[in-house]
């Protein structure tokens, strides 16, 4: 028997290698292979601020799985999508990579990510449904990343401006209709000097208003409805009456938050940790900013850890992704910075649900409660170029150059053409 041993071992090794080359067969269970060897972890703009935290997490992993070595690579905030795109194109995607769901979708479509539901049958017991569903896409069967940290938006109001212009800072708008009405009062009472509204609507506003964005098959957009046109008409009238700054037509993502920080507008949305930033950047806002829950459906922002399907050390990669996203490590992270864990068991941590009475802490608790109802407001199929086209047409409608319905029809036509190109 001994003389056949090398041959049998070689055959076994070859079989394992073939199984490993199976690409997307992905049927292995964690624990069936030894967790050892080097594994790379790519994070997105977390160092140097969270270097100590990441090192602690890595040290814990290496201690739990002796023989493992984690190579941490943190990429800068700017140009991350291009970086990941280059890595994916050149086949050098790290074993475990920090991806938001919209970055993960194109990689999943190209079989570059591991379907983590095939290697972890405890996903739904461990992570909240919203976090998991963010990595489940129309037309793809599977879950393409472990949810990591979550966030959502709450409303922030400059009570100084509200109180000075005939409004009640303790009772800011609770619905979209109230928002438009109070925008009018603020504008009129301030002699046209103050603004409440400072952003034009987008896909997320259509979703909040109950308007479907994509057709069931995900191959065309269907937002060009009378309901969406009516919503745009409200913004058009507000713009015409001067309730929004004219440059809102050009705004970028941080537009209204920037104007709010500069004290130019009285309302913005932002994550649960925004008050200290507002006050740091503009000390005159100190004590004037209060937070209230999102007007309608809050947005859910999800970060995740995906595992490369081409990882040469899949068992360790899966174990590492699970380790970083486990309740304990996410909990520690959420105590350092105002994000929320995607693990179900973290919900019982009073740190998230109890306020210490400060406005910043109130905002954090509001955001945490908002997560219960938060959802993805923008389908991941709507990419940056499509959003730009919609934004351009919405600006045209708000400016009054074309009717709202016409603008939506034009945007839908162009986006459908782009979707048809695949």
């Amino acid at each position: 028997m001994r003389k056949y041993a090398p041959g049998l071992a070689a055959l076994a090794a070859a079989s394992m290698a073939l199984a490993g080359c199976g690409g997307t067969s992905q049927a292995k269970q964690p624990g069936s292979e030894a967790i050892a060897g080097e594994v790379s972890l790519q994070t997105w703009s977390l160092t140097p601020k969270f270097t100590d935290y990441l090192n602690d997490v890595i040290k814990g992993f290496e201690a739990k799985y002796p023989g493992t070595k984690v190579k941490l690579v943190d990429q800068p905030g700017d140009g991350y999508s291009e970086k990941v795109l280059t890595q994916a194109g050149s086949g050098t995607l790290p074993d475990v990579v920090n991806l938001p769901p919209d970055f993960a979708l194109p990689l999943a479509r190209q079989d570059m990510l591991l379907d983590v539901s095939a290697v972890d049958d405890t996903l739904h017991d461990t992570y909240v449904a919203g976090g998991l569903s963010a990595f489940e896409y129309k037309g793809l069967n599977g879950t393409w990343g472990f949810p990591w940290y979550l966030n959502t938006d709450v409303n922030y109001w400059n009570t100084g401006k509200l109180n000075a212009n005939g409004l009640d800072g303790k009772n800011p708008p609770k619905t979209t209709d109230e928002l438009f009405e109070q925008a009018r009062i603020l504008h009129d009472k301030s002699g046209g000097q103050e603004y409440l509204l400072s952003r034009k609507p987008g896909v997320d506003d259509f979703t909040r208003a109950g308007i479907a964005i994509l057709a069931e098959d995900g191959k065309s957009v269907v937002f060009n409805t009378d309901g969406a046109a009516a919503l745009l008409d409200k913004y058009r009238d507000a713009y015409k009456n001067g309730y929004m700054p004219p440059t809102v037509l050009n705004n970028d993502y941080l537009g209204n938050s920037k104007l709010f920080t500069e004290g130019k507008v009285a309302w913005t949305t932002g994550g649960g940790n925004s008050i200290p930033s507002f006050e740091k950047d503009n000390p005159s806002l100190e004590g004037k900013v209060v937070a209230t829950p999102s007007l309608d459906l809050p947005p859910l922002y999800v970060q995740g850890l995906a595992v490369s399907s081409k990882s040469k050390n899949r068992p360790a990669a899966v174990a590492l992704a699970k380790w970083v996203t486990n309740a304990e490590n996410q909990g520690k992270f959420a105590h350092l910075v105002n994000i929320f864990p995607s693990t179900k068991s973290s919900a019982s941590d009073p740190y998230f649900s109890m306020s210490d009475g400060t406005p910043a802490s109130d905002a954090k608790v509001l955001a945490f409660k908002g997560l219960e109802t938060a959802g993805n407001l923008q389908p991941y199929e709507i990419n940056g170029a499509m959003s730009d086209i919609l934004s351009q047409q919405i600006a045209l409608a708000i400016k009054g150059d074309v009717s709202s319905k016409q603008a939506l029809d034009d945007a839908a036509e162009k986006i459908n053409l782009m979707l048809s190109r695949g």
Partner: protein
Amino acid sequence: MKSHRWFTPWALVLPALIWLFVFSIWPTLNTIRLSFTNTKPLGGGDFVGFRNFVDLFKDEQLGYALLNSAIYMVVCLPLLTIGPLLIAILIQKKLPGITFFRTAFYTPVIASAVVVGLMWTWLLDDRGLINNMASSLGFIQGPLPFLTDRWLVLFSAISLTVWKGLGYYMIIYVSALGNVPKELHEAAAVDGASVVRRFFNVTLPSLRNTIVLVSILVSVSALRVFSELYILTGSKGGPGGQDMSVVMLIQQYARGFYGDLGYASALSIVLFVVTIVPMLVLVRINRKANDQ
């Protein structure tokens, strides 16, 4: 007398040829190939015939972009060909404090396009310096929509380009003016030619090749404008995308995971053709003038 082997000249030009092939010829050929495909950054690549070019005709934004580029070139060409020449002649004079003006004209050139764009955004904002001044002096009742009106955005961007380009082209003229023989000016002066006459009969003919060079540079950069419009419109190309340039359009379609590289390549070919035509016209005009 042959002092080198046959391959010596080839060996000397080989690095340049490799550079040219890798960074110019191959990318150009590849762009042409891509324009007939549905290539995406992470897939696609199937041959689709002329579909991308047919789609170009349906894209009204391309119409806006081509019109913007044409206007940009028509306005910038005379301003940035003649203006820097006049400034170059002016700053050659040895006048008290002229160093300050030389520095002042050149400063915009070394400033980052992004920083300059942001500065101009603050100037032109509805509550920016220009609107505030015009309003406080009683010239306007409400703010002028420099950053949201289709034409005002375009002409604001053109102003920015001209302001930033004056110093750059001025330097080219300054160096060319240094090569104009002084003897010609002196001889013309002895013959009684006035300053204006000397400018037209001595300076301008001596600078003709430089003027053609500047015209070509101005035309090409005007047709390929990006930063100014991108920053002034907050990257979105203004309402309806009417203030996009062709380069912005290429960037819009080519970027990110979903970049439509086939369509963006077709747009690049359109830009190439649009850019090369005025260049050829200017070269031909210059050649004719030389022949005469």
